[in-house]
């Protein structure tokens, strides 16, 4: 639950954004994000809410851990927490 998950904003409609997480598209609430965001930005999602706009120059560093976790099997708790964070956003 402490681990947010990064995703890319596809489009924004009101206080919600369609966000892509490794091909899975979910609706994420923008009510508590730290600065204004636009389509193409990456955000850190926690329980369905964007909590930070990820600085563009650090995206690849930020994604590396998750790329590895996404390859893990279903029994792995860290990978399960990441999948849970993606599930937390609305379909």
């Amino acid at each position: 639950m402490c681990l947010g998950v990064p995703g890319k904003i596809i489009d924004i409609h009101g206080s919600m954004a369609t966000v892509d997480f490794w091909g899975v598209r979910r609706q994420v609430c923008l009510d508590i994000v730290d600065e204004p965001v636009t389509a193409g930005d990456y955000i850190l999602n926690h329980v369905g809410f964007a909590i930070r706009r990820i600085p563009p120059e650090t995206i690849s560093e930020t994604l590396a851990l998750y790329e590895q976790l996404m390859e893990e099997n279903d029994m792995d708790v860290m990978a399960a927490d990441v999948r849970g964070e993606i599930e937390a956003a609305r379909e």
Partner: protein
Amino acid sequence: MSELKFRDPAMARHLAETLVHLMAEIGRPVAVMHVCGSHEQAIAKFGLRSLFPKGLDVIMGPGCPVCVTDVPEVDEGVVLARQGVRIATYGDMLKVPGTVQSLADAQADGARIDVIYSPSQVVDLARGTDEEIVFFATGFETTAVATAAIVTNDPPKNLSILSAHKYIPPVMEIVSEMPESRVEGFLAAGHAATITGSAVFEPFVARHKLPVVVAGFEPLDILAGVVELVKLIRDGEAKVVNTFPRCVTREGNLPAQELLWRVFRPIGGRWRGIAHVPNGNLRFRDEFAHVDARRRFDIDVKSLWDYAPPHLAHQCICGDIMAGIRNPVDCKLFNKECVPENPVGACMVSNEGTCKIWHLYGGVPDLSEIAI
């Protein structure tokens, strides 16, 4: 367990060697504490303890929000569920033991419990029904902000919230003041500090003269954070260092902090098995009394106490484990009577609990054959 895969093996080797030199310079055992289930997952999963020099103890403290949810708080949820109120909560909460029952036990007896992943899903659930819905809300400040967001966004009238939200900085004070504590510095969780900013730890550092390093979750991030922390300990320097600037600033997420403190006030309360933590619990301010389940319902937890508590519970040492005084392997129930399928204590329930993580990955694996 995963094979060690560092993005930059040369850097990992360099950091591991630096740690060895630093510990040799210090010349005595050192214990540091992290307060985040995701940190423990990464440390155990990637076998980082096998890279730490002998004498350096990296301990998990009270970093699992589900685990520190106190027994009477679980009782409140169980009583409401048994009264026929529909409860929505995070999946990890279901098996957490109360005095006599967990929510899963209440569910087996016919209570209605909905597992959710997000506060937004609770709002959707309440909008789709006329029934009273109580959101049993757990989590540290990072998660509490999301709860605050639904509360201030015109929630449905049939939705109320039982807040078991907890605030991390005060428990660091309590743990470091424990007479048995050997902790000489803290590794703070990057994503929680995304909200609060690294500055939230400055008063703690000033009072306790212990360094705090904010670190990310990549194996390299954690190694770099530990190196920085041990360096500060060697130099006797008590300050806050942020080694995770790509997610954390000094000020943090100011709009989120404003929202958090507009909705919640910190009050003292018990953390399971640890202690009374002044200002450690987040409860609703009076302006939000209308969504506070404790004020909307008469929650008679005493009605539960006619039953006998589960046996073995008195042997559980979760509290000492979360305070960093003992390890899961010191518990005689660990991996015997207490396993994830049938947990005795809260630390074996959650994916962020020390016992569950050690059960899955092992605590101090021997990875001497894996080269980095």
